[in-house]
């Protein structure tokens, strides 16, 4: 029987999550921010799959399916917002949105 240490899988998920976090914090192009968010969601899905493998259950895969659905809905709405923002400001720079003050 082949075994992999469970922490290696979780560490891979953690590294991917932190790379996505760096992307969200540094990039000013809103399309890159959305792509980094996808990376973070994907990393959390990987953590669920690792947990599912650790306990030999299928529940982790069910949870991964829910995350997949969430990511699809989120990216559809986010890309719609990006198109609307580009129409209004002719740029993908997120700092133009800072004038939106209450």
């Amino acid at each position: 029987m082949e075994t992999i240490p469970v922490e290696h899988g979780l560490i891979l998920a953690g590294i991917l999550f932190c790379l996505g976090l760096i992307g969200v914090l540094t990039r000013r192009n809103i399309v890159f921010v959305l792509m980094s968010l996808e990376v973070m969601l994907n990393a959390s899905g990987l953590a669920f799959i690792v947990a599912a493998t650790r306990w030999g259950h299928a529940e982790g895969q069910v949870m991964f399916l829910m995350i997949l659905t969430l990511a699809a809905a989120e990216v559809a709405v986010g890309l719609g917002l990006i198109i609307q923002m580009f129409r209004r400001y002719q740029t993908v720079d997120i700092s133009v949105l800072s004038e939106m003050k209450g």
Partner: protein
Amino acid sequence: MITLFYLAGAIAVISTAAVIVQTNIVHALLYLILSLLAVAVVFYVLGAPFAAALEAIVYAGAILVLFLFVIMMLNLGQHTRDQERSWLSARMFVAPGIMSALLLGQFLNVMSQIDQDMTITRVGVMEVSALLFGPYVLAVELASILLLAGLVSAYHLAKK
């Protein structure tokens, strides 16, 4: 199989790092597809073939194609690429890099105390679908309502 896990993990990390330092948006998208496919290989090695197939079909297939359509619609030219290059200095990465490294260091510290092996057992489509249409049928319905809401709001937001 175990070497495949580490190889695919290394490819995923490297291509994700390439995504966040790219200036050309289409190149970043291609690196992201590579990263997602590598994660799909990791899923397959971990004994989740259904999740691996969905990762390749839904993430790398559908969501990334959606990104590609929007990039084509926006039609960002050379101007945006130059702007992107001027924004992306090494100085920008210092503070977020340090903060994320601290977070990752704490995480690694916690993880190093775990000492458990996972035995790879294949959990196939049948077990997952028996759960999906058994005890979790309400979650499936809610997910479909979420997708419908996403569809309606994306249509409304992208309309002129």
